[in-house]
């Protein structure tokens, strides 16, 4: 039962990702990407990583992708960009990525046939995740938070209102 569900969700994820890459309309592509992220969330859930599953939906599908849609809406280019995409996505340019993807696929087949890593996951609860994050992986967490802080400062700098002189001569 779980295995069937797992393969269905994987199929959805792979299909959605392929559709995402081949769409000419950016918003349609994003919708498939969101679907693909949701399918990955289901995969995490089935492997017992409930916490990661919910976070996948909240952070990737629910927050980051909304920002992507937001930006594409702001830049609403319409038909023009679709034509441009069509020019970019010539059949010839698929050869390279397809070959690389094929190599990965063959590798995966070899691993599956040789019977590696077929163990089923066990349920992980939030406490274990927290202890792992603030125990052995503390350094990684701190580094990631520093990276985010740098991003935050950068965004603040870019969005800072241009200083204007008000009537009283004060700078606001």
């Amino acid at each position, binding site marked *: 039962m779980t295995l069937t569900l797992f393969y269905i969700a994987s199929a959805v994820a792979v299909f959605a990702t392929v559709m995402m890459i081949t769409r000419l309309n950016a918003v349609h592509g994003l919708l498939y990407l969101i679907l693909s992220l949701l399918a990955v969330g289901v995969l995490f859930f089935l492997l017992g990583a409930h916490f990661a599953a919910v976070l996948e*939906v909240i952070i990737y599908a629910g*927050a980051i992708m*909304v920002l992507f849609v937001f930006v594409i*809406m702001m830049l609403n280019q319409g038909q023009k960009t679709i034509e441009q995409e069509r020019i970019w996505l010539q059949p010839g340019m698929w050869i390279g990525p397809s070959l690389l993807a094929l190599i990965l696929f063959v590798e995966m087949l070899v691993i599956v046939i040789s019977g590696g890593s077929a163990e089923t996951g066990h349920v992980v*609860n939030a406490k274990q995740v927290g202890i792992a994050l603030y125990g052995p992986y503390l350094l990684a967490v701190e580094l990631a938070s520093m990276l985010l802080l740098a991003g935050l400062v950068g965004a603040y700098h870019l969005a800072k209102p241009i200083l204007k002189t008000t009537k009283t001569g004060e700078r606001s």
Partner: protein
Amino acid sequence: MNTGLGDAADIIGILVSVIFVAAMLIWVERRLLAVWQDRLGPNRVGPFGLMQVVADMIKMFFKEDWIPPFADKPVFILAPTIVFITMLTGFAVVPFAPGVGIIDFNFGLLYFLALSSLSVYSIVLAGYASNNKYSLLGGIRAAAQTVSYEVFMGISVMGVVMLSGTFNLREIVEAQRDGWFIIPQFFGFIIFLIAVVAESRRTPLDLPEAEQELIAGFHTEYSGMKFGMFFVGEYLGITLSSAMIVTLFFGGWLGPWLPPLLWFCLKTAVGIMFFILLRGSLPRPRYDQLMAFGWTVLLPAALLNLLVTGGVVLSLQG
């Protein structure tokens, strides 16, 4: 996991009653607003105007379902279903009473946050697909507003999680036997309440559909049943939000004398009426005021609440 959870009768019963409540809210809201504004409200169809919902529904079913030729058709059709489906699936984790509910999920609270953040796609995509300036403005506002308010919503309930030590909504309710969390988590409650109003896009924070400036915002181009879906989706959102407020801060099904399910329904009904009262009494802030208030007041307040709660919990544990 639990006995009595998630059998067919439960699922169908909850689904039907939730949709029924959401539909009846159309009447309840109009009547209550009318009472608070010293009017009568719809009182002609059936006793007390109760059949007004049926009349509205018949009207909506028979209206022409018009898709503008300039719209992005597949997305235009998809958009109203998203809010409906995400809100209905959100009810899966609501702990109605011991043994009544659909699933007992260990991360119920996070599941609710995830679905409420997914529901924004409905508005954003509707705004995009309508291909209309006002809709687009509404969609952009909705995206910015919900992404911002989601942040404080998540942080404000972490105090509750700290006090109860779990994300499981049923265990959160059980942890409130000695006292509702509204007392130790009063600031968390206020922040959560504001964030929930912003998330469900209700007046006073209904900037995405502000009639006076944006015609009808994201659903300007929608008609017939598609408009109806947005409408009922909004009421489903209110019901779900009230249920979550009751679960997190008002002790869920706990209460003396009456059966647990009745307590839960009563508290949720009060919550819903509070939402309607908000609409009837508060003016709408300007868009930049809303965003500035969120980031400069609510975010620091939510973080401070988290810090103080964490400190108190630690010091009590010794």
